[in-house]
């Protein structure tokens, strides 16, 4: 039942927030904060109390916690929730960033507060649902459902940028990209289900059952591509990234934090949980292409980040670059690389959220996001520039920050599989240093524009930033708890992937 509550708390909390607006403006904020704090507390209690270093059973994945009831018996669809180390870490991340999203919109959002928090909490509820669902229908259900509140968040509370870049356009673009690619995934899911039906005569959307489906190579490749495209749009992988800069730039701060911190991670989670384990052979065959795409993302994201004028668009492009590393790590498929992917996801969530919150705070003070109008802000904004430096340094992967651990593990783990890719990707790290320092230079150093000082961070803002910096350093210096928790989940993925790589080779060898 705990798992059900993890999903229900944000949904019910959202409804309460919506109605609490009748009381006063602040009630929804406190309610939302309480809901996310409760969610985080439950997750941490599960982390503390449970043992996620379960001995791997050969029969299939072992779940820390599981909950299932029939839902649509006609097609064997169940409400089937399960928790393992990977989903636990990501849910903890979701509730933490949810907390930050509520906090950072405390001053920014003034109109329609109740409805705003309804949308915010429903996004988080949908994301938690995605991380918990292992019935493919249910997974798709949450996957698509979380788009609607995100759409409202961007369309109603976003910022309109230059002409032709309105928030509604950005929201529509985001929605259509993700929904259309999601439908491809639905078709792929259905294809898999009917293949299983032809094989066993039973309908089932269960993860465990569908993993056993025998597929011809061609069919497996097509179905895998259906999944991959949906996840690639969300991650985003470079030719399919068109929605991301607009959505990030136009969204309110809380929306950007959720997008960069959590929504992008659902895609990586989907690849780790579904695309690879369901189609290991096809994924193995596709791996060079995927890694190539990841490489393109690393270089392309970094190059475009260097040329941006809008500070939020710059951070958005750095996300593309960082997610390129994640894609390389996932399709390298070694234990080290996969573990690195988890650390990278967590680290990127912290650093990107930190930078987005800081740019939101900057916007509240300067009322612009255009870097051409900034410059020489160091010393005139209190501690804000110093925090920006911390996260910029984290973003470029300085040793001591969690980002360094993640990138290092991904590159190290991928080297035996694809040395060429790693060599070029390492050059991407140099580009990361360039855009991060460019950001610092153009905003906070250089010739000062304009006169006067602005308010220092207040206690709420200071606490948020300090907490994030502490977490970045904590996981940078001691990532072991994270690795222990997700080790088995990643190990299972790695074994499947490795087995599919060696199988054809073994079959080809002539045994003496």
């Amino acid at each position, binding site marked *: 039942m705990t798992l059900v509550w993890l999903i229900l708390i944000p949904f019910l909390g959202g409804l309460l927030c919506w109605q609490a607006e009748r009381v006063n403006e602040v009630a929804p904020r406190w309610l939302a904060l309480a809901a996310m704090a409760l969610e985080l507390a439950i997750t941490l209690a599960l982390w503390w109390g449970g043992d996620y270093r379960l001995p791997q059973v050969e029969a299939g994945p072992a779940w820390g916690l599981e909950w299932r009831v029939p*839902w*649509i*018996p*006609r*097609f064997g669809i169940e409400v089937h929730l399960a928790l393992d180390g990977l989903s636990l870490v990501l849910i903890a991340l979701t509730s933490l960033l949810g907390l930050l999203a509520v906090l950072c919109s405390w001053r920014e959002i003034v109109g329609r507060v109740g409805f705003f928090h309804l949308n915010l909490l429903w996004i988080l509820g949908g994301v938690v649902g995605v991380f918990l669902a292992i019935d493919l*229908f249910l997974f*798709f*259900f*949450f996957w*698509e*459902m979380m*788009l*609607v509140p995100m*759409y*409202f968040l961007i*369309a*109603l509370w976003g910022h309109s940028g230059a002409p032709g870049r309105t928030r*509604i356009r950005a*929201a*529509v673009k985001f*929605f*259509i990209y993700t*929904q*259309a690619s999601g*439908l*491809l995934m*639905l*078709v792929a899911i*259905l*294809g898999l*289900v*009917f293949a299983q039906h032809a094989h066993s005569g039973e309908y089932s959307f269960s993860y465990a059952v569908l993993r056993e489906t025998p597929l011809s190579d061609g069919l497996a490749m097509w179905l895998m591509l259906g999944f991959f495209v949906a996840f690639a749009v969300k991650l985003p992988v470079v030719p399919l990234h068109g929605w991301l800069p607009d959505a990030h730039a136009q969204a309110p701060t809380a929306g950007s934090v959720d997008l960069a911190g959590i929504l992008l991670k659902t895609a990586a989670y989907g690849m780790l949980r579904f695309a690879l384990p369901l189609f290991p052979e096809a994924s193995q065959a596709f791996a060079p292409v995927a890694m190539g795409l990841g490489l393109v993302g690393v270089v392309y994201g970094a190059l475009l980040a260097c040329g941006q004028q809008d500070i939020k668009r710059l951070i958005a492009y750095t996300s593309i670059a960082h997610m390129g590393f994640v894609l390389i790590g996932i399709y390298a498929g070694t234990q080290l690389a996969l573990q690195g992917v988890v650390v990278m996801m967590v680290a990127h969530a912290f650093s990107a959220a930190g930078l987005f919150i800081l740019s939101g705070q900057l916007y509240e003070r300067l009322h612009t996001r255009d870097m051409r109008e900034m410059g020489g802000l160091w010393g005139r904004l209190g501690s804000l520039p110093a925090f920006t430096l911390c996260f910029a340094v984290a973003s470029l992967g300085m040793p001591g920050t969690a980002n360094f651990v993640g990138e290092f593990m991904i590159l190290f783990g991928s080297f035996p599989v694809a040395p060429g890719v790693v060599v070029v990707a390492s050059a991407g790290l140099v580009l990361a240093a360039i855009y991060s320092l460019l950001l610092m230079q153009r905003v906070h150093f250089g010739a000062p524009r304009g006169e006067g000082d602005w308010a220092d961070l207040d206690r709420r803002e200071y606490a948020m930033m300090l907490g994030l910096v502490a977490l970045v350093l904590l996981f940078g210096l001691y990532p072991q708890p994270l690795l222990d928790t997700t080790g088995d989940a990643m190990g299972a993925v790695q074994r499947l992937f490795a087995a599919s790589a060696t199988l054809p080779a073994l079959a080809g060898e002539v045994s003496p």
Partner: protein
Amino acid sequence: MTPAALLALSPLAIVAATILGVLLGIAWRRQHAATAVVTGVGLGLALSVLPLAWRMAPLATPLLVVDGLALFAMALILVAALACTTLGHAYLEHYRGAREEFYLLLLSAAAGAMVLAMSRHLASLFLGLELLSMPLYGMLAYAYHERRSLEAGIKYLLLSAAASAFLLFGMALLYAQTGQLDLAALTAGLAGRPGGWGLAGAGLMLVGLGFKLSVVPFHLWTPDVYEGGPGPAATFLATASKVAVFVVVLRLVTTAPAFQAEAMGAILAALALASMLVGNLLALRQANLKRLLGYSSIAHFGYLMLVLVVAGDLAVESGGVYLVTYLVTTLSAFGVVTLLSSPHGGEDAAALHHYRGLFWRHPYLAGVLTVSLLSLAGIPFTAGFIGKFYLLALGVEAQRWWLVAGIVLGSAIGLYYYLRVMVTLYLVEPGMRRRDVAVDWGGRAGGVVVAGLALVTILLGVYPAPMIAWVRELSVLAGG
């Protein structure tokens, strides 16, 4: 006529009796509320005896058949007619002309739709279709002092007459080939080789019925008629009328071999694909909600035609589920438009700018419209998602990849205009509110119906198992 047959046909008899009752009532004394109540009670009674009729099924008379498919369609038609009655009451409240005849026309059209759904003979098919269409001309032109309403009525009359001519010609060709008008005998006559005349006849019948379903390229009337017709009439046209015609086409396709010929399948698939794409593309630039819903219904029937192309067991079930979800969704979408409109204030409030900032004036009404738009777009948590899921499942199972691609592409295009309407509801208004719903809309019957429909939309989306079980039970007996 045996007692069993009498009982099985009692829903139709009750509706017919209500027509007489309303007719006599109007002749005696004009009373708007009482007429609406009598209509509602009659339709409700007919709906409540459906389970009794179900016990007698399957039962066939020379002209009519009472089987699962017919009962299913009748249930949907009666629900739609009931909703239109309550919406009509709200809509006509301040209408200055004669108000009571509207219910007479509505009941007659409902009776026609029921006959059509039960028909197993080309004569009853034609009779039902005309009984459905004739009152609709009157309903569409009901606000005749409005130019657009009159235009809608006459347009529908002319094009409908042309379609009827096609239908009759097709029937004549089939008769020429087989010498039969009974569907079962026709099937036997065409078994083996349909022959050229038989195919041509089937094709012409398809043209006539395709017109009623507004399938591309017979769709040209749809947006104009939807836009011009009074709200409740357009609602009936979009729901009950289309459901009845679709059911009869489904019956034809599943029973008669002439419709299952290779060439016919290819034609149906092409029409389906064209409807999906044309409907969605033309809806993109609409600034009028009723026109937009008209184009979207073209697209939805394009999706639904996948059922006709595949025509298997799962197909009938999918068609049933999709019809239920489409009906509930369309009723609530049109219901909101109708509640916001009234004929005494000029044209219906269908232009998109009327809906700007609706959420901040009438949050619940805007919520209802949001739910129905999301459902039309097929987003999870709404009934529309279950319907779309079924169609995609059907397409994947039958490996009709072109049509599956069409549905995916059409949905992606469709999102754009549904979202455009949806976001309009939430934008801050620039200080204009020309048209408004009566303040206590929630207390009115129409408001309750619309809110209930939105609730059902969400319920079906979250827990569709009972609906699926019900449709399966009824579709078992189909094709009798």
